[in-house]
């Protein structure tokens, strides 16, 4: 074999060997555990803290309000949709308060008249005609509308 070819084969063997060594050391652990990805990624994604705690957790302390809510039209609505995420409050109720009523615009997000919104699903009002400027909770109890 000519000397050039021998020398080149050696150089390529070294290069490929280097690549394989790097591949061994740099491939992350848990690679290909379930498929062509890092298996640990599933655990890392699952570790994230949940911010919304859902109605059952709220009802553990606020049972009277939960009871009232089950009798009105808002019974299927999660508390946290209006009051914001509850994870901080559930951990430390004294120091972390939830949001309360946020004004007329907040209720109108759902209840404003819009032709695309199915009339059989939700009651809609015209924001201009229906007591413009008044706060909704003056007349309506949000927990039992």
């Amino acid at each position, binding site marked *: 074999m*000519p*000397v*050039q*070819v021998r*020398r*080149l084969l050696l*150089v*390529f063997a070294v*290069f490929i060997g280097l*690549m394989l060594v*790097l*591949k061994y050391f*740099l*491939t*992350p652990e848990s*690679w290909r555990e379930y498929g*062509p990805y890092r298996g640990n990624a599933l655990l890392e994604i699952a570790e994230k803290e949940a911010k919304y705690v859902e109605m059952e957790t709220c009802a553990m302390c606020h049972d009277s309000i939960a009871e009232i809510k089950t009798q009105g039209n808002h019974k299927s609505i999660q508390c946290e949709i209006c009051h914001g995420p509850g994870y901080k409050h559930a951990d430390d109720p004294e120091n972390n308060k939830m949001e309360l009523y946020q004004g007329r615009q907040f209720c109108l997000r759902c209840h404003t008249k819009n032709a695309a919104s199915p009339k059989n699903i939700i009651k809609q009002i015209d924001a201009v005609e229906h007591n413009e400027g008044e706060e909704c909770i003056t007349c309506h109890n949000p927990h039992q509308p």
Partner: protein
Amino acid sequence: MNKYESLYEALANLDGFIYPNEIALNWDLLIVMYPYITGLVAGAFILASLNRVFAIKALRPTYEISLLTALSFMLVATMPLISHLGQPLRFYEMLITPHLTSAMAIFGFVYLWYLMVVLLLEIWFDYRYDMVIWSQQKKGFMKFFYKALSLWVSDTSKESRKTDEKLGYFITVIGIPSAFLLHGYVGFIFGSIKANPWWSTVMMPVIFLFSAMVSGIALVMFIYMAVSYLRKMKIDMNALDTIAKYLFYILILDFTLESLDQIHRIYEADESFDILKLLVRSKLFFTFFIMQIGTGTLIPITTLGFLQFKKPREKIRKILYLIISICVLVGIFYMRWNVVIGGQLFSKSFYGFTSYKVNLIGGSDVSLSLLWFIVPFFILAFLLWLLPPWKKHAADI
């Protein structure tokens, strides 16, 4: 926020409806540079192979210049990609744990193959004898450097030169399909995205390949003229005329293929056609009709065609070739722009457009793109100093 200023501007310039996440163009100018640079590599190499494999002797004066140009741009080819990554330090993951169904992952290996096995080897075989002679003539660090470059193979016999010649020819023969693979692959990276109808066509790899060849040949034409001027060497007009002839032929092929793609699209007029028609006519009017087709294709084709029949004086031809090569280089850049940027300007909902403005002053994508385009010229200057083609010893085998 200054960082997001461009996004707010795009939001103000919305046309119709886009999916909310489409407001940001993820593949910006840097991703336009990447197929442009790899295309220059493939094209320059094809010109070199025209001489080596297809025995077009008129191109001999440009053989080494083509190869060294290809190498200079090849070394920089991945830099626009790495600069663009959201996490550039993790780029090695593509080589260590490539996801084999991804065209981009396979490209890492196609790139390595082409760089190591084709380009470097061909240049090595062509220059090995000269590097040994130069190592004997120089002293000190340069002596060691040339010895190292020749991999300490100091054989200068006639047989070894014959082996070099044979192996170099063999590598060039492999190199031609490899060059096709290199740039066809880039086309495939775009052409395989079924989500984007502007990109998703079978013709994409072919179009990319032929426009790459056109740009590479124009680049070598330009560099040959520039280097000869800077070194005050006489230009071999036969070589230049032959380059122009091949540029003309491949331009015709490229134009035919691109026209075929567009005509097919217009004739079939599937569901994406209405938004794409608006895209080309309004958003891409300047870059498509005036720059890519007008400046980049029609002007060069008509001029070169005219030159095939009537050859004016040498001086006029040189000026024409200079202008044409620049026109083609600019035109092919805009072709890449139209594909990459154009494909992101319209919404996948087919209901609207977003916008993209290049910040000519202070935009990081502009400065990086310019950098990665200019650096290869410096590398080429270094290579031409290190491995001067005009100081090569005649191949008297």
